[in-house]
């Protein structure tokens, strides 16, 4: 089988699994559709921005939750709200879902619950980052072999 076809098949299967396992939702497909000749690296750029932002927000949450004197739950909630917004705009469904639960714990001022969610959100973010890096690597390989990236609906 042609190398390009093989790679494309791999890409399609991998994309499908990411959607099936809930890592990505339809919003990610919308993001891919926006990529065009004017901005050929759009998806990678947005993903990089998202990861940077994620790290910053997770650090903010960790710092706020560490405060022994008294946790400012409003501050934690503000960061979680932002993470929820950016993860939903990129289609990071599992990260977004943790944020929803996280917000309830913030509202209830439950430090233990918040810490558990922080752990979960960190875990989901790392997983997603790895998966997307694999996806982007596949993309690069397809382009290097002279093929085009298939659009997965």
């Amino acid at each position, binding site marked *: 089988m042609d190398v390009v076809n093989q790679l494309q098949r791999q890409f399609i299967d991998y994309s499908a699994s990411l959607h099936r396992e809930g890592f990505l939702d339809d*919003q990610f497909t*919308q*993001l891919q559709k*926006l990529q*065009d000749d*004017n*901005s050929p690296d*759009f998806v990678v*750029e*947005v993903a990089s*921005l*998202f990861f*940077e*932002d994620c790290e910053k927000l997770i650090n903010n949450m960790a710092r706020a939750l560490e405060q022994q004197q008294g946790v400012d739950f409003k501050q934690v909630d*503000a960061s979680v*709200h*932002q993470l*929820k*917004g*950016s993860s*939903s*705009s*990129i*289609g990071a469904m599992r990260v977004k879902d943790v944020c929803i639960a996280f917000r309830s714990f913030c509202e209830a001022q439950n430090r233990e619950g918040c810490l558990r969610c922080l752990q979960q959100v960190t875990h989901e973010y790392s997983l997603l980052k790895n998966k997307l890096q694999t996806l982007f690597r596949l993309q690069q390989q397809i382009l290097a072999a002279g093929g085009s990236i298939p659009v997965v609906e």
Partner: protein
Amino acid sequence: MSTASLITTWKVRDVVPVPDQFPTSLRVLVVDDDPTCLIFLEKMLRNCSYDVTKCNRAETALLKLRENRNGFDIVISDVHMPDMDGFKLLEHIGLEMDLPVIMMSADDGKDVVMKGVTHGACDYLIKPVRIEALKNIWQHVVRKRKNEWKDLEQSGSVEEGDRQPKQSEDADYSSS
């Protein structure tokens, strides 16, 4: 007196440039402190052939609007921002520039949407925003201009009550 009577004889559609086709180059100012959302919105708006300026702070947005009063046709702003609340920005814009403003948020709670309505937002979009929702934002610009002309028309219509219902346009022009 003559200016007012001239206005009442014009039909709104003669004056307001209502586009026949999809209007391009609508000048949009988009404000959001979330960098991922901001870049996403910018791309979608550019794909709609709009002229986009992006801002990650409400204060900066206000500065840009004040510096260039006629430089934008519409503003799209997030509700939750660290430096200035989106509703405050909405109020300022309403008072100072009177541009149509669309609010956005991941928050779809009824009271937040209501707040948008009562503060004068012309629309409220729930995030994540789709390109389909952005394609038609030009309607808010046209509607606002149409309403402004209607107001002008109605303020001149005090004259109309004194006049005969069927008057030729020539007669009005010559009556200056």
